[in-house]
């Protein structure tokens, strides 16, 4: 070894393979399905995938930021249920699409603020803290809805999510915009640097003058707002919302983010990784559906695929060290 620290700058085929492994695998799945399944590579099918994944992408974008900051937020599933209930109450009283969406985002934002303050200033492990607040949010969801199904009274409101622009639904476009915002925040702003530093080494970031607690709170606020928006869009699309709706989106989101290669240990990851992770899982599920695979087996295979993807990633990282 020489005294000057050196790193091989030649483009290393192996590192390109491992760094972008999830991209290659997703492309392979795409190509395989295009070749094997007639219905896959059609405008309608791809448009549907994008439309279905729009809410997942919105939640995943900010979940990625929380994970990189070293946190974990399981309460996003509950916020995804709670926010639209408040939003639909607003819609029922003031029939305004903008105010409805705003209400949903605001509920998520407040819930995220609660999470962030508990985690940052209460020094409670974020997984446990957000598990606890999940119960609180679900409870509030039942209070808000009186345990009934809330409905969108003005059916034209669906245009918020179903309008076609350049062939894609408005929900898809909203997701694109949210993902782009998250990407820019993480990659191009001061806030993004703070997120990486806080997740990479909390104490070092603090001693370097980073207001670490505020950064943690901000990450949870963003994630809450994203989940609030996503839940509200979803309920506007289905025109109903109730407290007992399916909240499993948070599991799909975490699976996608982790499959994409963002570390749950914090400090590393990227928005594009989560986007690829979302589509990796979406393509597989779509392929199953088009080929008529029994949903029971779908789930089992899906779980195995996620384990394989994450395991392969862990293996390739271990080789490096």
């Amino acid at each position, binding site marked *: *070894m*020489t*005294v*000057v*620290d*050196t*790193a*091989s*700058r030649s483009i290393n085929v192996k590192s390109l393979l491992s760094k972008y492994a999830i991209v290659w695998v997703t492309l392979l799945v795409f190509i395989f399905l295009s070749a094997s399944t007639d219905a896959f590579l059609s405008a309608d099918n791809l448009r549907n995938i994008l439309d279905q994944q729009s809410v997942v992408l919105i939640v995943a974008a900010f979940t990625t930021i929380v994970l990189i900051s070293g946190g974990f937020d399981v309460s996003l599933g509950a916020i995804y249920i709670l926010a639209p209930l408040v939003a639909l109450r607003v819609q029922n009283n003031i029939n305004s699409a903008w105010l409805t969406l705003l209400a949903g985002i605001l509920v998520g934002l407040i819930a995220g603020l609660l999470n962030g303050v508990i985690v940052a200033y209460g020094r409670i492990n974020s997984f446990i803290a957000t598990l606890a607040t999940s119960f609180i949010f679900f409870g509030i969801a039942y209070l808000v809805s009186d345990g009934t199904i809330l409905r969108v009274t003005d059916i034209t409101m669906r245009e918020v999510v179903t309008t076609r622009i350049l062939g894609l639904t408005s929900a898809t476009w909203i997701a694109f915009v949210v993902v782009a915002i998250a990407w*820019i925040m993480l990659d*191009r*702003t*001061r806030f993004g*640097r*703070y997120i*990486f*530093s806080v997740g*990479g*080494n909390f*104490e*070092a*970031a*603090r*001693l*370097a*003058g*980073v*207001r670490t607690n505020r950064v943690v709170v901000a990450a949870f606020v963003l994630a809450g707002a994203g989940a609030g928006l996503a839940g509200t869009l979803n309920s506007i699309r289905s025109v109903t919302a109730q407290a007992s709706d399916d909240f499993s989106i948070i599991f799909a989101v975490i699976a996608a983010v982790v499959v994409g290669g963002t570390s749950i240990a914090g*400090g*590393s990851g990227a928005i594009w990784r989560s986007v690829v992770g979302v589509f990796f899982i979406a393509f597989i599920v779509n392929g199953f559906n088009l080929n008529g695979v029994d949903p029971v087996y779908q789930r089992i295979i899906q779980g195995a695929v996620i384990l394989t993807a994450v395991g392969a990633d862990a293996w390739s990282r271990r080789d490096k060290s």
Partner: protein
Amino acid sequence: MDLEVRSVSKRFGATIALDNVNLKIASGTIHSLIGENGAGKSTLGKILSGVYQLDSGEVELAGQAVTIGSPREALSRGITIIAQELSLVPSRNAADNVYLGIEDHAGPWVRRGVIKDRFEELTNTSGIIVPNDRPVSALSIGDQQKVEILRALARNAEVIVMDEPTARLSVEETAVLKDVMRSLRNQGKTIIFVSHFLGDVLDVSDAITIMRDGKIIRTSKPSDETHDSLVEAMTGRKAGEAFPAKTPPNSPAPVLEVNGLTRGMQFADISFTVGAGEIVALAGLVGSGRSEVARAIYGADPFDSGEVKLQGSVIKISHPATAIENGIAMIPESRKDQGLILDRSIRENISLPYLKKLSQLLMKRREENSMVAENFAAAGIRALSSEMTVRSLSGGNQQKALFARSLAGHPTLFIADEPTRGVDVGSKRAIYELLADLARKGMAVLVISSELDEVVGLAHRVIVMQTGRIVAELVGDQISESAVVSAAFSMKQREGLAS
């Protein structure tokens, strides 16, 4: 059990860590491996203990060629390593850690009584005593290291590789460890001592092997070597003066003024000043409160009473961010735990405290790059590009990255806590130059160091602390290693407390 290494080579990517190395290590000796960072000494230790595998060559144990494919295989042949980062289970006591994985058991039940007896026997025969009544996380680093040594002995290790074992120890703990090493040697164990601390190496070794750039320069007896001859062989350069010349300022205007600073049980009634162009060293034993005082000034920890004045006016510092805004920079004690974001680039690590200035809505990359480039050069970081991750740098260059970060803020007060810990000889000299240069340019510099030669060689004034209080202040000719030591160990403080 003699150990012989024959034409061993090892590469990591493009770098050659070991280049055709031949070495004999006699049984029952303390054999030191020294060299600058990257010389290959740790790599060699790790190959012998199975952490790394050699690319070519062979290792012979008692005349037999052996393969050492894993730490487990090394252990089965009686070789083990005590790494720099200890690997204990923090919540369990010493005996549990020592017998972890080799517990006496009856079926699924662990026989606690037997383990306790065996632990006592082991401590008796080895003479290594550690408290067993508390989790190891409550032990000092020195005691934790002893637990690791006991663990090696419990597994019948004959050859123990110690990788920088004294790097995190205080002076007293180091003395204890050296006694342990000697007694193990007298019991017939072989110790391979990988270290940067040449004083310890000269003191404790039976043989010293000096390495440079993956090759062995020579193996010799400590009686044939001096500190300077070792440095020369390690660096390949003539050992010049270890420290830059002192240029004390004439009646410096105080930049920092600390009055009656007190914090709970950690320190009390701390008052001192640091002037422009002055290097003041805070000396004292580990645990005397030196770092705690520095952290309080920097806003890393709160204090109960007293005041901190910067250039004449009292400042309220509740967070490091405020300290940085006020022109205070601090290099913390542990660069890995408290200093650097290891997986981010050198650039991002340098600019981190100044991002407000370097961004509006988005980061201003051009301004950031020029700030980084300027201070990257000023701190003398040796790396191909500022886009490399900090993790890939040597200890010395990592430390320089922290200097670059601090310099970028143009501070008026510069605090450096153990600035040369775990840094190779060449980088040490460079860091001393940097500190002296900062003072020459009019900065107030406060250095905390456990290395006495550093305190004596750098400081214009030395403040000695003991159990949270200042016990002595030494100026000019009064500064000597013996004066600092006698102040640090003086009973004045304890008598004062008793009366």
